[in-house]
């Protein structure tokens, strides 16, 4: 089956005070309809930048796509016009953000905001847009949608606001929904509701979801495939089950084992957590011809410092960019 979105050798450069840094360096992946793919990594590793690149929302004058392709439905988004991008944004690819408190305009009712999206992108009339807004609120399981549609954002809880954001993002039945840390600001019970909602919506409408997160548990629950990003590069990607069962990159291994997880049966003993020492390198080190994780890796050899590791393939489309992927 033809993938919905193909990203090929994408390179995004950011102009900083110390020169040009490749914040995304040679990233490739496919996304199929109805699939959920997850980007994982620490902050500053380029997860959100990938999303902005796909949306064509890179910061003006500072960020640009230097090379590579983003092919959506047979159309290369890196070369298409700004006009066309604007049509695609919100219509065929939409995005929800981390902070539901600030993503909604406080001076309009949620109904007005959802209806506005529908009128702008689908040319619906006032009445029709309003009715769809009510339906959408109902679809994202806001109780009493008929009445709540004329509420202002401040009258809603954090979880409800995030649902309104999802309703807005889904208003035009997008083919791809990008969710950038959609539940980080929310409580776990609310997070569970949102995940449940996203999963159902994806099953019903076949919308593909790109979920950006730092929580391995959330990845395991939500996604079929995952991409572990480190310092702008793909460290490891493949089916979630395979990676969690047997990570092939020391960074992925560290990310999984440094978090205390709740297990099926809790035992008395508690191991010391695995530490991934140090922090993500600064932008000025991005793009060097070596393994950027080497400074934090406990398997590091001379080779890692001299040459950037190639991606090594494992079964099921599992790829890892580590010289010693087989040994991990």
């Amino acid at each position, binding site marked *: 089956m033809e993938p919905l979105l193909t990203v090929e050798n994408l390179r995004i450069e950011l102009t900083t005070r110390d020169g040009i840094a490749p914040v995304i360096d040679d990233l490739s992946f496919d996304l199929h309809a109805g699939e959920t793919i997850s980007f994982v990594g620490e902050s500053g590793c380029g997860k959100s930048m990938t999303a902005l690149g796909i949306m064509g929302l890179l910061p003006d004058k500072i960020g640009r796509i230097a090379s590579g392709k983003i092919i959506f439905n047979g159309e290369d988004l890196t070369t298409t016009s700004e006009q066309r991008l604007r049509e695609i944004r919100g219509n065929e690819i939409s995005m929800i953000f981390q902070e539901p408190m600030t993503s909604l305009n406080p001076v309009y009712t949620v109904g007005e905001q959802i209806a506005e999206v529908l009128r702008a992108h689908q040319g619906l009339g006032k009445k029709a847009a309003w009715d769809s807004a009510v339906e959408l609120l109902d679809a994202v399981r806001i109780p009493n949608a008929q009445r709540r549609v004329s509420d202002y954002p401040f009258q809603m809880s954090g979880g409800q606001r995030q649902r309104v954001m999802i309703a807005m993002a889904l208003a035009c039945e997008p083919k791809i929904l990008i969710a950038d840390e959609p539940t980080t600001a929310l409580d776990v019970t609310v997070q569970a509701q949102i995940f449940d909602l996203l999963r159902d919506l994806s099953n019903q409408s076949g919308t593909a979801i790109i979920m950006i997160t730092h929580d391995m548990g959330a990845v395991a629950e939500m996604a079929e495939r995952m991409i572990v990003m480190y310092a702008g590069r793909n460290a490891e990607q493949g089916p979630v089950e395979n990676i969690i069962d047997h990570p092939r990159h020391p960074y992925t291994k560290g990310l999984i084992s440094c978090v205390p997880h709740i297990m099926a049966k809790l035992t008395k003993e508690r191991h010391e957590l695995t530490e991934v*020492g140090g922090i993500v390198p600064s932008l000025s080190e991005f793009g060097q011809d070596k393994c950027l994780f080497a400074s934090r890796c406990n398997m590091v050899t001379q080779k890692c410092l001299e040459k950037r590791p190639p991606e090594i393939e494992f079964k099921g489309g599992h790829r890892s960019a580590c010289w010693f992927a087989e040994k991990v």
Partner: protein
Amino acid sequence: MSKSPIIPEEEIQKARHPMAEAAEMFAKNYAAVAALIVLLLIVLAAIFGPTLYPTDPFEMVWAPFSPPGEGGFLLGTDYLGRDLVAALLHGARVSIIIGLAAAFMSVFIGVTVGALAGFYRGWVEEVLMRITEFFQVLPTLLFSMVIVALFGASLPIITIAIGVVSWTAVARITRSEFLRIRELEYVMASRASGASNAKLMFKIILPNALPPIIVQAALMVGSAILFEAGLSFLGLTDPNVVSWGQVIGSNRQYILDASYTVTIPGLAIFVTVLCISLVGDGLNDALNPKLRQR
């Protein structure tokens, strides 16, 4: 598990005080640096000018209304034949002293009121902020005129009059900074380790609240100089002391015949106040951490 070093072997950066970084930022703002240089020249002129140029500004030295350059007098003479260079140099001292003293006074009152209100909240804040509002709605020029008229036109009274009407802005800024900073966790941490209220207020919160206050104080010096000029122009000034505003005030009837007698001191005020606000702007940018990032 291999015990990796907790901190990567990075070069230990040179420890720099946040204020040192602000100074560097300020140095990059050319307009502000130029203004600071001009300002320093003006201050030097005010300090050493009268000694180097001992002509008495009240003495009649030449024919009245001599235009600049005539008879060797660089800026000419006014309606009583007094030397305008002497007036400018001696006046600079008074204008700048009043500007600084009045600004200092309003910062002192404003910071005290704002700090108490912002730190203690409750009824203290209610009372102090009502008082602040009272002073804010007073017509400032009229009020200071009343003070000067009541207590006489001497330099200290004029300074007090200006200080009393202009502290409210500082009080409001200080209060809002205190309200913000007192809730920050490092203040909580100090409270949890038993710091006294005085220490919390003056050693922990105030230094962090200073940047906007410093900017406001700089601008206040400028507005105090203007205020003094305004009062002098209206004749509410010590007749035995020369200041820029007083020179303009006393020559105002002759503005059409000898415009230079008014424009030259006016220009002095304009340049000084402009430089002060440029410096204030530069300070604002340098001390604002949001602009300092990256």
